[in-house]
């Protein structure tokens, strides 16, 4: 709309004030605003925050009743160094610009920082809690460091004191192969590079893969150390299969990767000290081990020798040990021999005895003959003993009988008269006439007839 004569416009005070077209005014405002506020730092709380699908980030800063629309273009979002969240107290750096089509102005953010230490620490505390809840800092997750790493991977800036300090300290203690993954340790994209390096080391083929990582950075402001507080970096450290030593800033600085790391070293030099033992000490230790080994085996051998000697002494001279045994053996042998002899003798005696009892038939015959003779003699003797008195008696009796016999008187003139039947005739009556008698005289019989 161009200016026109003030035909419908009643004259007023200050009517000679120049009149702007909306466009002109808008342009002027834009120019004024952008020149005046070409670089501003503005502090406020994020009250609204949207990441558009285009990649641009739209947010609203507020303080009290005032609000400030803000935008962070896609290219800058990744470089902010922090992820804006509603409620964050931030200090944004950028420029103001106007948007004529909507009669609006907004802040185009170049960088953003948490407003004040307190806010930063609060943010870190909350992030730490969240990651701890997930278990990323659990003691059970910690891997033990290799005693003597084969290859040491270092994630740090290739320039500056940190890598030099680490290499120097390693060389002093125990030189080892070192693989450096160069990264930016602050500013834009640092967090991403660090996380990529840690994952990259883990993805290397086993022959080249380090068995220990050092993630290091020198001292700096809290903002400088922020990449080491980034969730992506903390996660990369926690997920690393290779044990990680974190060494960020000075001794008093603590970053979130310190909690996820397997070991936190206060400084990069200290990280190198934790990484490798001192070679000389190990050489001494090994040499001592070797010496003790030799001493021990010598002592052991000496001990056994002494014990053997002791036992030997206790045992005495084997010959002397054997002598009584030999003597006993001799005694036994002798007794055995004697015993054997006696045994044989006894047997022989018994055989002789038995043999003695055993008679030859000839002897038996002889004996039988002897017994026969003997018996015969005894019989003869017995007969004689038996018969002699009887014979004597008989003789006596005979003689008596002879005296008593009638015939005995015959000699003296008596005669014996018998009949034919032999009956003695003792009376004349028996001598009947005519009978035949026999008169016996001393010297014989004479038949007679009784004469009438």
């Amino acid at each position: 709309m161009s200016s026109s004569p003030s035909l419908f416009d009643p004259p007023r005070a200050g009517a000679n004030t120049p009149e702007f077209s909306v466009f002109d005014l808008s342009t002027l405002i834009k120019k004024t605003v952008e020149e005046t506020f070409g670089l501003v730092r503005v502090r406020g709380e994020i009250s609204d925050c949207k990441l558009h699908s285009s990649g641009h980030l739209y947010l609203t800063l507020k303080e009290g009743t005032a609000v400030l629309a803000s935008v962070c273009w896609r290219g800058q979002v990744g470089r902010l160094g922090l992820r804006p969240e509603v409620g964050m107290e931030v200090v944004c750096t950028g420029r103001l610009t106007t948007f004529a089509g909507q009669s609006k102005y907004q802040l185009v953010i170049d960088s953003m920082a948490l407003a004040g230490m307190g806010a930063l620490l609060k943010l870190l505390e909350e992030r730490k809690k969240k990651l701890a809840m997930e278990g990323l800092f659990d003691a059970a997750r910690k891997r033990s460091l290799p005693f003597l790493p084969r290859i040491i991977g270092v994630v740090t800036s290739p320039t500056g004191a940190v890598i030099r300090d680490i290499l120097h300290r390693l060389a002093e203690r125990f030189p080892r192969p070192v693989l450096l993954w160069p990264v930016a340790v602050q500013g834009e994209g640092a967090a991403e590079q660090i996380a990529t390096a840690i994952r990259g080391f883990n993805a290397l083929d086993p022959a080249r893969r380090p068995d220990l990582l050092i993630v290091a950075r020198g001292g700096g402001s809290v903002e400088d150390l922020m990449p080491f507080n980034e969730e992506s970096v903390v996660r990369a450290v926690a997920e690393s299969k290779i044990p990680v030593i974190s060494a960020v800033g000075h001794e008093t600085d603590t970053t979130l990767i310190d909690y996820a790391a397997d070991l936190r070293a206060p400084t990069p030099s200290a990280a190198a000290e934790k990484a490798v033992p001192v070679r000389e000490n190990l050489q001494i230790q090994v040499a001592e081990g070797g010496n003790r080994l030799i001493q021990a085996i010598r002592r052991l051998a000496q001990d056994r020798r002494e014990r053997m000697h002791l036992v030997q002494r206790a045992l005495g001279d084997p010959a002397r040990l054997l002598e009584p045994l030999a003597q006993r053996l001799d005694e036994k042998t002798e007794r055995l021999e004697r015993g054997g002899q006696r045994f044989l003798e006894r047997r022989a005696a018994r055989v002789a005895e038995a043999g003695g009892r055993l008679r030859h038939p000839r002897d038996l015959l002889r004996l039988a003959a002897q017994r026969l003779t003997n018996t015969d003699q005894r019989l003869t003797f017995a007969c004689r003993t038996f018969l002699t008195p009887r014979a004597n008696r008989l003789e006596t009796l005979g003689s008596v009988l002879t005296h008593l016999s009638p015939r005995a008187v015959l000699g003296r003139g008596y005669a014996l008269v018998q009949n034919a039947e032999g009956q003695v005739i003792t009376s004349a009556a028996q001598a009947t006439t005519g009978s035949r008698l026999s008169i016996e005289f001393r010297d014989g019989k004479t038949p007679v007839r009784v004469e009438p």
Partner: protein
Amino acid sequence: MTKSPSSLPADIAALSFEDALMELEKLVKQLEDGKAKLDDAIMAYERGAALKRHCELKLREAQMRIEQISVSADGVVSTKDFTS
């Protein structure tokens, strides 16, 4: 101690420095105890001597080679000598 590593028993050659040192110390303690049977003691001594040799070899591998990773645009990881 000029023997080649190949003269070491395979199981010892495969040990890490730390494990070899720990075993050496264990054997030394056992021997110092003096209770082992002589045959066992001699075997322990021989093993200990091999472990010591292995440790010394490991300690001799003290070279400091420093390389730097470089990632090409297509993501291929290679290494080159590091120059600070």
